[in-house]
């Protein structure tokens, strides 16, 4: 087996004095698409931050792309959750992507033909050309996330970290963003770590699932991990995993609505949530 893209070895992580997980040993294979699932506060984002070198492990080791994690690793691209930007912010999509090229470097950053070419290519690859010159705060969530992906990929990383990139997007845009990431990943030995509260939009792409709950975790293919037995063991209470029309629902008795066990207390209040709910139970 080739060297893994990311390897944790007996890793223990604490955040503000709270132990998130301890003695975790696992490896994400290079070239794989890994969905990281689990309820809020289970340390999904902390896992990404440890890989980015933004927080240090309490003990144990983590190796990223063959070395210790370092801040600003050019081999890593990062796509954050969609946040609404001020509609009056004087920033175009093109400028956001440009920051992905060299925004972290010192100096003024005079425009150059080379960086403009890279930005143009990245924008073309996510089909964001028609709106790349408009104020980014006035674009739709889906358009903004396209540009975020261009920003993450313009540096030509080999590891892409995505932190809930589909949250608050409607189904159509979820599909578009998923296709973009999948298309990029298929183009070489590229690794995607995809934090999400709902595995269904990326189910077709996922090689491995890491499910984290209360400091416990399970990793394997979706068929191995997303089973009633494994989930019941992880949550420590009875959980059913249902498969309906090619979608996976994790339903636990602690979840009042029986819906979206992964995030029982924090259902996003967005209009498209209604769609998703309907679509999950009807063909």
């Amino acid at each position, binding site marked *: 087996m080739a060297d893994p893209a990311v390897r944790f070895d007996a890793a223990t992580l604490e955040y503000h004095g709270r132990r998130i997980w301890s003695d975790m040993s696992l490896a994400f294979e290079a070239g794989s698409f890994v969905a990281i699932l689990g309820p809020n506060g289970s340390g999904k984002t902390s896992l990404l931050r440890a890989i980015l070198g933004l927080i240090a492990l309490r003990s144990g080791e983590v190796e990223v792309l063959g070395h210790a994690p370092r*801040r600003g690793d050019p081999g890593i691209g990062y796509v*954050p959750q969609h946040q609404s930007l001020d509609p009056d912010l*004087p920033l175009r999509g093109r400028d956001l992507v440009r920051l992905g090229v060299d925004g972290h470097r*010192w100096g003024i950053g005079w425009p150059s033909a080379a960086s403009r070419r890279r930005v143009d290519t990245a924008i073309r690859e996510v089909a964001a050309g028609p709106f790349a010159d408009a104020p980014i705060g006035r674009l739709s969530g889906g358009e903004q996330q396209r540009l975020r992906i261009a920003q993450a990929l313009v540096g030509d990383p080999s590891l892409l970290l995505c932190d809930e990139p589909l949250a608050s997007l409607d189904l159509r845009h979820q599909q578009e963003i998923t296709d973009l990431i999948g298309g990029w990943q298929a183009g070489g030995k590229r690794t995607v770590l995809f934090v999400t509260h709902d595995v269904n939009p990326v189910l077709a792409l996922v090689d491995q699932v890491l499910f984290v709950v209360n400091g416990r975790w399970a990793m394997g293919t979706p068929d191995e991990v997303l089973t009633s037995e494994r989930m019941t063991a992880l949550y420590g209470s009875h959980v059913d995993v249902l498969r309906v029309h090619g979608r996976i629902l994790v339903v636990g008795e602690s979840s009042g609505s029986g819906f979206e066990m992964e995030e029982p207390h924090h259902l996003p209040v967005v209009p498209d949530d209604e769609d998703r709910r309907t679509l999950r139970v009807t063909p």
Partner: protein
Amino acid sequence: MIDQLVHLLGYDFAQNALAAGLVVGIVCGVVSRFVVMRNMAFAVHALSELGFTGSAGAILVGASPVVGLMAGTTITALFIGALGVRVRERDSVVGIAMAFGLGLGVLFLSLYPRYATQAFSILFGSITGVSRGDVALLVGIGVVTLIALAAVYRPLTFATVDPEVAEARGVPVRELAIAFLLIMAAAVAEAIQVVGVLLILTLLITPGATAERLTVSPARATIYSVAIALVSVQGGILLALATNLPVSVYVTSLSFAGYLLARWIVGPIAVGRASRRAAEGAS
């Protein structure tokens, strides 16, 4: 009026004022862009008022008021930087520092009864009245500030418009916040010489806010902001020389007129064009 202006331009004090105004205009134009984007109007106000305390203290002990100003704004910047980490805390920390610092200012004033003239010039500006040595000091501080701004311009932009991804890309977001406070401290000390403590926002908010109304390109917005600050300062100095009214009267009027023009006439056209592009692109 013109005769008087031409006559006065032959004097050292007028040339010094224009030289200092050039540096102050450029510094304030760039800094106000970040002040507006980072929502730091209140911090500017506090730095300014504690600059007053600093210069009152300096006059009391017979030191240069410009040195006192710099000391006052810099100490305040470090205090805010050390205690006001989170945005929510920041305004409280600023308010707390400002209240105590102004109390000190009152103390210095009451200890030095013949203070009235100097106090007036610090509160309302006196660029045509500063000594030659102080003008040299102003230009020196201005040049150092510009060099510092040029060094951090690109990562500071990244950290300002897109802090989460900037951090993931290794930009030292927290350190840059403190560096920017120190740059702001210098800019405030500079601007006080022109418009005074009480009118500081005319140079550290208005140019940046006006520029945002004119364009969606960040680079162009910075250029516009510098141009607006320069026209306000230099125009204000020239008009004051011609008419014997204080410089700050004209600087505030010019920058205010520029804002109204941008807000009601030029801006809606420019931003409307950009939004139409966005709408067309999206459809």
